[in-house]
């Protein structure tokens, strides 16, 4: 037993982090926000070339032949960098929808449990659906997750996407963990720099303890995500999503509180983390669904 990432896994993570730092740093992120263009086709292809989407496809099918543990590590990095777009759906579509694996196709999914779908206007396909349905654009709270509302008869039945729910939830949880870890960093950096009453605000216990609880939440959620990636257990996947959703949302809010008025501005990145965390919390599996699934497994295990 060595639960820590292997050297290869760490190298993979570092590679993706470096790619994103160069290709989707803060300026690129803010440029996306300003233009309202969430999916950058060039970046999408580069991610595809780096194996982001084909990661778990067997080498015989042109994939990288790795597993969920590697996938959650790279998705964590994407969450940290706030990369927009239907990363999870496209990854799940690798080997199913042509071009998904290579990043030449953008694939979204009906993962919001209803008639809303994200990134429809930028997508080439919808996972588990025949063709691209029409949709009415809806003004979205997250500036980098455009939404459309689709006629109810064009929403795929639960069964058509059921096979993807667990993996979709887990990879989404990994994105949440990346965001939760990133907001700890943002809060700590601000708390160390911002001075009030003659000292950095991070010297005040109230701020210090907010930051400490943020780290606790993020670390527990990260562990749950890694464990679920290793074992693939249904309960562990549900726990991963539940804890990661909570960590991402609560950390973004605490990060905002640490930032004070500055955190309330459009210019700060905090709100982008919070809004994206809200989106992801609705994707694939909500907290109530995860808790019910866990309750069921608990009762089964108790015999």
């Amino acid at each position, binding site marked *: 037993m060595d639960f820590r990432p292997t050297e290869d896994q760490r190298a993979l993570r570092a590679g993706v982090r470096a790619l994103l730092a160069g290709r989707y740093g803060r300026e690129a992120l803010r440029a996306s926000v300003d233009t309202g263009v969430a999916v950058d086709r060039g970046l999408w292809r580069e991610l595809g070339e780096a194996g982001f989407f084909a990661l778990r496809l067997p080498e015989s099918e042109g994939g990288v032949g790795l597993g969920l543990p590697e996938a959650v590590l790279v998705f964590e990095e994407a969450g940290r960098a706030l990369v927009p777009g239907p990363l999870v759906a496209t990854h799940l579509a690798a080997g199913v929808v042509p071009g998904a694996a290579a990043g030449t196709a953008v694939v979204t999914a009906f993962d919001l449990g209803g008639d809303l779908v994200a990134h429809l206007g930028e997508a080439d396909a919808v996972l588990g659906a025949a063709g691209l349905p029409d949709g009415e654009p809806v*003004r979205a709270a997250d500036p980098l997750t455009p939404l459309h509302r689709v006629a109810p008869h064009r929403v795929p039945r639960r069964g058509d996407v059921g096979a993807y729910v667990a993996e979709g939830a887990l990879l989404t949880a990994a994105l949440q963990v990346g965001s939760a870890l990133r907001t700890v960093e943002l809060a700590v950096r601000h708390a160390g720099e911002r*001075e*009030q009453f003659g000292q950095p605000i991070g010297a005040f216990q109230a701020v210090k303890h907010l930051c400490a609880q943020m780290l606790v939440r993020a670390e527990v959620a990260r562990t749950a995500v890694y464990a679920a990636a290793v074992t693939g257990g249904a309960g562990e996947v549900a726990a991963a999503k539940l804890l990661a959703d909570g960590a991402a949302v609560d950390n973004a809010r605490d990060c905002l509180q640490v930032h004070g*008025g500055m955190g309330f501005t459009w210019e700060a990145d905090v709100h982008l983390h919070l809004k994206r965390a809200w989106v992801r919390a609705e994707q694939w599996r909500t907290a109530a669904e995860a808790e019910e699934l866990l309750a069921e497994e608990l009762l089964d295990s108790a015999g």
Partner: protein
Amino acid sequence: MDLTYTDEERDFRARLREWLAKTLPELPARPSPDDWPGRRAYDLGWQRRLYEAGYAGLHWPVDAGGRGATPTQHLIFLEETERAGAPYVGANFVGLLHAGPTIAAEGTAAQRARWLPPVLRGDEVWCQGFSEPDAGSDLASLRTRAVRDGDDYVITGSKIWTSHAEVADWCELLVRTDPEAPKHRGISWLAMPMDAPGVTVRPLRTLAGSTEFAEVFLDEVRVPVADRVGAENDGWRVTMVTLSFERGTAFVGEVVACRRTLGELARTAKANGRWDDPALRRRLGRLYGEFGALWRLTQWNVSEAERSAGGVPGIGGSVFKLAYSHARQELYDAAAEVLGAASLSLEEEWTLDRLSSLSYTIAAGTSQIQRNIVAERILGLPKGR
């Protein structure tokens, strides 16, 4: 313990209700949030109607041109206008609730005569220049400098979180007039015309996507010494006196609005089926209980204010604000649970409200600062070293 109203108060409410029923349908269409001149005109128009009907400056002292109403009458006014869906105080906020009361309490006769009537009549708009980028919770550390030059102050610095700056006539400005003094003792209160040379307004976009606030940059702006209210370097005390004007009524309209929102949430949940989830239903039930208690706490504070000299001290408000700001954020989280994925759409009004509510635990004293105030000033716990 009496929660009934006097005959006089009931009569006041009835007449107000009648007037609102008659007046509100006559109002012009509301301007769009981005139309600042339109908003100014709309808000001032509403203020003029209040003035003509005798409701302007309800809570101001009579000698300042106000109606000298009791806190209870003010509570009734705020409750009824919110219930009826009347316009929010809007552009008149600073004039009616902060700068005006400050001038009424601390200004000279000439200053009162110059600045108060236009506020009551709906002729002039004030904005507030207190906060600075580097002085958030630590407001008294503000650095905008005012240097005497003859009969003027020459002012350089920047202010932030200024509402209605684009359309204001005057700014109540806190400036540092003595950089050598302890931080609370070197501040002065000035009335600055917003069209003075050297004033630049830059809209500040919030996370809700709106530009409700602005930054105000001051580059050698000249303000006559005669437009200082109160003594030089006494501005911190001068600005604190207005807190007592509020007399427990600061959140009346907002609590009424939250209670209405809860009712709408219940109806929506009933309609979309989520009401059948006992966990969500109980969450809404608990919030209904909490906002009911907050309404009663408002009545308590108003009762205190009505019978005590000088109104409610700011520290009583800290208890209320801590409970209220938390409950209101929780209200919009519950709204998101009622809406499900639809809460991700800005077309649901609660989504925008949810975003705005993120400021409640930060603005006007963060919850951390409020807890310090409660612990030190009410509970008497020692200051940290």
